[in-house]
């Protein structure tokens, strides 16, 4: 079973050289710490920066330099700053090769819900709806089940949708799954996790074909 760092490490293996990447808040943000050797990627944050670098050294925080999670950051050499319209032109215009975001629920047709629990939690969608409606390559990073042990990989989302038929891949603490026309296709198991455990934790249609390898995470 993976912890959050493990999920981030596994998704980092999906990065390809020269990709522009948008990382959502939470687990996705951790991915920046595990970029594979020899892979050069640039991070976009939708509040208006491309070439986002590490957090500043203590005492060097700049209130005018934050990411979409409102965290203080630094720009890399070669970074650029732009307004919100240009930022979403990048996103909507498919200039970003990978988007990773968290979710409350994912359905086996690629629907995603991650912005609202009616009557209880209404934080808003932020940039998530633009991201999922536009990106060709969307990976969801999340726990396989919620705090009550219920599956978050569903036949159909019960919460208000963020986007329809858009998620391409899900990486959880238990497994890596592709979204296919037939449902969640199991690609890899987390270390020490059995196919049976994944089946039990997955409410949506699950396809298990042949031998399912265990993830390789160092």
């Amino acid at each position, binding site marked *: 079973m993976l912890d959050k760092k493990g999920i981030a490490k596994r998704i980092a293996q999906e990065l390809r050289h020269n990709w522009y990447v948008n990382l959502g808040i939470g687990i996705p943000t951790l991915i920046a710490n595990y970029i594979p050797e020899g892979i050069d990627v640039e991070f976009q944050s939708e509040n208006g920066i491309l070439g986002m670098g590490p957090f500043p050294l203590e005492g060097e*925080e700049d209130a005018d330099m934050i990411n979409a999670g409102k965290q203080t950051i630094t720009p890399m050499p070669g970074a650029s700053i732009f307004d919100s319209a240009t930022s979403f032109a990048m996103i909507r215009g498919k200039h970003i090769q990978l988007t990773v975001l968290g979710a409350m629920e994912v359905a086996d047709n690629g629907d995603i819900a991650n912005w609202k629990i009616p009557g209880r939690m209404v934080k808003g969608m932020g940039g998530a709806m633009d991201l999922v409606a536009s990106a060709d390559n969307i990976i969801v990073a999340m726990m396989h089940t919620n705090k009550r042990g219920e599956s978050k990989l569903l036949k159909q989302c019960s919460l208000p949708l963020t986007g329809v038929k858009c998620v391409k891949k899900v990486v959880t603490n238990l497994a890596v799954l592709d979204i296919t026309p037939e449902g969640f296709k199991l690609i890899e198991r987390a270390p020490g996790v059995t196919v049976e455990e994944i089946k039990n934790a997955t409410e949506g249609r699950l396809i298990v074909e042949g031998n399912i390898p265990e993830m390789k995470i160092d």
Partner: protein
Amino acid sequence: MNKLVANVQEAVKDIESGMTLMLGGFGLCGIPENCIAALVKKGITNLTCISNNAGVDDFGLGLLLQKRQIKKMISSYVGENDEFERQMLSGELEVDLIPQGSLAARCQAGGSGVPAFFTPAGYGTEVAFGKEVRYFDGKPHILEHALSADFAIVKAWKGDRYGNLLFKGTARNFNPLMAMAGQITIAEVEELVEPGELDPNTIHTPGIFVQRIFQGEKYEKRIEQRTVRQRENS
């Protein structure tokens, strides 16, 4: 083209209850602190505020929420604010949540004479309720309309009395877009410079979009998430 006004009171003098305002900023980054404080003091109510976020409980637009001066918020993300959530869930506050990219594009469209455009964002979600759907290249899009406001209130780093503005870092965000979309646009700046000091080639907001400008005071520039990395041992 002198757009200089003496101070913040002068800048907001004719903003009245019931008006629609756009306010720049992302979280607390790049918000017009002086104008918000003046609006709180003015005590006007029933405002419709278009702003990506709604501040935090005790800063930014949160200050106007505390005093119940806002009737309706048009935003994309309103976490980080308990009072907001309480007013919204209790029904005291009307809230129109829209995707961040659509919000940016709708402000820009409002200032650009483009009344409506198609975007894929929000298709198949409750954001699309009642909106026209059309397919382009086989992909569904929804029709979104331009936003405008009685007043747009923005915060810039530097500006001159012609209204030319330069923003700093990610404090730019929605500010240049909203500056385009106000019937009247008010810019507060950290530093007022002489016309000609800003390089014409790198001005972010040309003065034509700004009707009033003044130098703000005592910027707090609060940081929401102070994240730092460790200094390596030397």
